[in-house]
């Protein structure tokens, strides 16, 4: 028996923890139905290398993972692009298959 997979988009954002709420507000505004937030330990980007700032969460980063339909992904990217002018962050988009299409 083989199951059919349904094509969706996997959006991955790396952003600063203090701005998470603002990014999630964009996701909510577009009706994203699911996402997962993961912690990051450190990294490097245009603003140099970083590690967690310990006593304050001012330099912590998180990864947001959201699997959405292609149309929704496109809409989201337009808004995220605007946000990236103001806030730090990067976005990656890739293809995934899901089992239960009505959920994503």
């Amino acid at each position: 028996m083989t199951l059919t997979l349904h094509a969706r988009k996997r959006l991955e954002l790396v952003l600063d923890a203090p701005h998470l709420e603002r990014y999630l507000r964009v996701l909510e505004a577009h009706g994203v139905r699911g996402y997962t937030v993961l912690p990051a330990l450190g990294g490097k980007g245009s603003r140099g290398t970083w590690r967690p700032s310990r006593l304050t969460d001012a330099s912590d980063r998180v990864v947001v993972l959201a699997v959405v339909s292609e149309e929704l992904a496109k809409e989201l990217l337009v808004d995220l692009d605007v946000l990236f002018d103001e806030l730090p962050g990067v976005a990656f988009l890739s293809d995934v298959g899901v089992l239960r299409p009505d959920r994503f």
Partner: protein
Amino acid sequence: MIHSRHRQQAVDVDAALATLLSPVVLFFALGFGAGLGRSSLAVPEAVAKGLSLYLMLAIGFKGGVEMNHAGLDPTLLRTVVAGLVAGLGIPLVAYAALRKTTALGGLDAASVAAHYGSISVVTFVAATEHVERTLGSYAGFIVAIVALMETPAIVAGLLLARRAERGKGARFGGALMREVFLNGSVVLLLGSLLIGAITGDEGYRSLAPFIASPFKGVLCLFLLDMGVTAARRLQDATAMSTRLVAFGLLMPLVSAALGLALAVMAGLDAATGALFVTLCGSASYIAVPAAMRIAVPKANPAYSLGLSLGITFPFNLTLGIPLYAAAAARVLGS
């Protein structure tokens, strides 16, 4: 006269040495050395945060119990005004100094300035140890001033950032307002102060084995961690110019001098005044970085944390505190 000044100086030097060789400073030095040598010594982040909460709860509660004893102090109001003046004035001086003497851009300068206008709770806590030993007990209300002085500098930094980038870089908003007025350390300090003031001696007796007896030991463990963190911040900030380093060493002296003048005007006694001067000379590394991250997202925290944690904090802990206390003793009478 000259004779007594000599004696006074000998006392100061002895007190400074005693502080430099106290377990508190030695554990900081141990952590700092371990950090510079890139030892694997590390206090887990959660434990460090827990210790920091403990210190704030304990210092707040003890301040509140003191206030319960002393009642409302007539100098309290004057000290509040002095704290506001310092919190709003120091960032202006710092901003001007940074723009004149260093290559920092407007947003970064504003962010650093806010850090120096606010205060460092741990520097304060370490100062209470030194002050109690050398100048006797201080007014409990100064803990309220600690909490109060965390905030105004954030507002000053924000206005400076706005001027620097006309509305683009800096944002007010709900999240920021919460960070400013309800940040964890403000709430914990003021809340514990209030609880201490309400429950008074009875509360103190029941909590003393937790908040009083082990206090100094916890401070040692915490400063061990602060040493490691400060060394890391210093290394991360290797890109810092000599001028920035000079700022990190001289700015606390300028702020402390301003603080001393304000302490005179507020009519503080030597012990309380020494703590007020230390607050002015210290720079934030908890409340302000969090607020600036939201308010001025494009500022690079490597500068502000490198300066406040990597340079000014070690300076204050070792040389600054004895110096401020000695100056306060001279000027305000011991």
